[in-house]
């Protein structure tokens, strides 16, 4: 039985298990599973998946209902957290919430579980308003997630509130299953004038294959500020399909930073929709991969109203036989005059066998806009290497320094100092050097 059949035949059992009488949710799930049944997993025949094939991943015999008796000690997983500052933590082990490792709150802001938000009456209005409202219901993998959505992070920052510390969302896989598929579902609501900083990470603790199909919906209301950081530094048997949908209202600022340093196949579908004037959207990423790793960034920014900006900056460093994809779509609708949309994608190929497919797409229907995109693919500058070596910096360190400098624009915009430090250290370890990069 292939994975699609397995998922379809598990659906009824799943619905019985979730013990949920809400008919709206039931209908939503039924619609979603139908859509997935019709469309199935995406293949390379689809334009949006031209450069990424899931075939090798789908061959695994994934279990789709994890056992729920996995326990971990904090000491064993501490290194994956930002342990040098205080944070709220939402920790999931094999898709199941771990209250022991988590640190939730309902004090002024809600940082808690999707499962309680989906089932408790007091959240019904919020769920009715926001759940699955901006996720693309036509998209097969998003539908698949919706059909099985039961757990994940629920973050609600009411109007005029500022989350007093960053929130870490951590999905850990223990390898208790030979192969595991998890489908986390996150909902983030940032009210008017509210602010939040979120860090999301997926981490396998051994080499049993994992497939994560994650959906995150983020709402940034008027003048809200939402910063979302994704750390993707998983083991080479972990696969991640991340579907993130962000809807912004006027005067809001939302940023997503994606650090792709590991995993087997990673696909980031990042969708921004601007629904008001003077909105700022920031999409940044650093990809540093090697061996046969594959990272595909698929971004879509939709400018609907006038006087908004979007700023995309993706840096990629590809070694060995790794492959990267950057597919960035910008739509500027007819009403969206004075749009300032900027997209940049710079890549360094360190090996003859590494590949990058870069495809910027601009669809502009307004006539008074500033849109630019730039894409570069190159090797390390040999003359810069010699210059640095002649000053006593060894080749490996010189290379690392150049690559770090290449990524610096993106690192520089990380607003949490401890996270910036952590990312810097991760980059140094990816580049195999031990030098302080505080440039």
């Amino acid at each position, binding site marked *: 039985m292939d994975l699609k059949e397995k998922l379809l035949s598990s659906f009824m059992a799943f619905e019985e298990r979730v013990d949920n009488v809400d008919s709206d949710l039931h209908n939503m799930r039924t619609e979603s599973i139908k859509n997935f049944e019709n469309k199935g997993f995406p293949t390379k025949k689809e334009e949006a998946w031209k450069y990424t094939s899931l075939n090798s991943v789908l061959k695994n015999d994934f279990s789709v209902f994890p056992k729920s008796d996995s326990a971990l000690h904090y000491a064993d997983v501490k290194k994956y957290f930002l342990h040098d500052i205080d944070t709220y933590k939402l920790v999931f082990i094999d898709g199941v919430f771990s209250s022991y490792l988590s640190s939730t709150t309902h004090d002024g802001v809600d940082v808690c579980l999707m499962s309680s938000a989906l089932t408790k009456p007091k959240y019904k209005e919020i769920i009715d308003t926001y759940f699955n409202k901006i996720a693309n219901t036509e998209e097969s993998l998003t539908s698949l997630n919706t059909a099985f959505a039961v757990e994940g992070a629920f973050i609600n920052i009411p109007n005029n509130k500022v989350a007093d510390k960053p929130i870490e969302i951590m999905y850990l896989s223990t390898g208790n299953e030979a192969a595991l598929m998890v489908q986390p579902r996150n909902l983030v609501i940032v009210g008017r004038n509210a602010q939040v900083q979120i860090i999301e990470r997926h981490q396998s603790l051994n080499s049993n294959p994992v497939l994560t199909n994650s959906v995150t919906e983020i709402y940034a209301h008027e003048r809200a500020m939402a910063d979302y950081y994704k750390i993707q530094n998983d083991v080479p048997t972990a696969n991640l399909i991340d579907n993130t949908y962000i809807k912004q209202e006027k005067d809001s600022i939302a940023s997503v930073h994606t650090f792709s340093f590991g995993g087997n196949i990673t696909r980031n579908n990042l969708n921004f929709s601007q629904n008001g004037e003077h909105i700022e959207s920031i999409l940044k990423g650093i990809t540093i991969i090697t061996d046969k790793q594959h990272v595909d960034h698929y971004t879509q920014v939709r400018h609907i109203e006038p006087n908004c900006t979007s700023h995309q900056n993706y840096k990629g460093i590809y070694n060995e036989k790794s492959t990267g994809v950057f597919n960035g779509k910008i739509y500027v609708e007819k009403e969206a005059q004075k749009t300032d949309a900027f997209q940049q994608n710079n890549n360094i190929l360190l090996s003859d066998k590494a590949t990058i497919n870069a495809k910027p797409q601009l669809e502009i229907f307004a006539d008074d806009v500033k849109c630019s995109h730039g894409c570069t693919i190159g090797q390390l500058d040999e003359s810069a290497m010699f210059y640095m070596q002649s*000053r006593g910096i060894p080749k490996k360190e010189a290379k690392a320094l150049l690559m770090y400098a290449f990524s610096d624009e993106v690192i520089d915009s990380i607003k949490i100092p401890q996270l910036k430090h952590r990312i810097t250290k991760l980059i140094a370890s990816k580049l195999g050097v031990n030098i302080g990069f505080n440039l």
Partner: protein
Amino acid sequence: MLTIKDLHASVEDKEILKGINLEVKPGEVHAIMGPNGSGKSTLSSVIAGKEEYEMTDGLIALEGEDISELAPEERAHKGIFLSFQYPVEIPGVSVTNFMKTAINESRKAKGLEEMPANEMLKLIREKSELLEIDRKFLSRSLNEGFSGGEKKRNEIFQMAMLEPKLAILDETDSGLDIDALRIVANGVNKLRSKDNAVIVITHYQRLLDYIVPDFVHVLYNGKIVKSGGKELAYELEEKGYDWVKAQN
């Protein structure tokens, strides 16, 4: 200090240096002059260890040790410094961090601990004053958007920081106005001692008014065709390189 014997070097199978002999002793300043295309910059790159240049024959030794097989950074650790004719722009790396990395890598190679931060700052302050460099300049990306004069001053600042045994100044005067030239030359002169040596590579005699050489060598067609004292530079300036070409 530096011994070069019968040095032959090629780039992409084209022989550029055709048997150079040179002996530089501690405390000396040697000027190497010559027309364009005579091999001056190739000589400096070969001494510094640039990989594109293949040394096909001969010997380069520093303090009696053959360095011709060493990587550029290893030569730097042994005390060779090359001031580039065209310093490379490195966006994203500040002057300060570049120098910190260079000094600490060099110390690491010698088995020393990293230089403490306060000592490093003191050194940077001291040496930047020597070159009349504004502190703000030090936090800028290396050479990015620097004027010609700033680039060359920055090269000599790096030399001051690294305190090499042998400094090679490749066309350091090109692109400098008279004030910048004076600052750069003063900097070099203050760094001179009985234990180190300088090779000044230049097309014109102008720089040699400020950094006075003990010996002048004329490079032509990959060979040193004439050597003499500082008066040779004046003679060249007066008669032009055609004089040398005519004799060879």
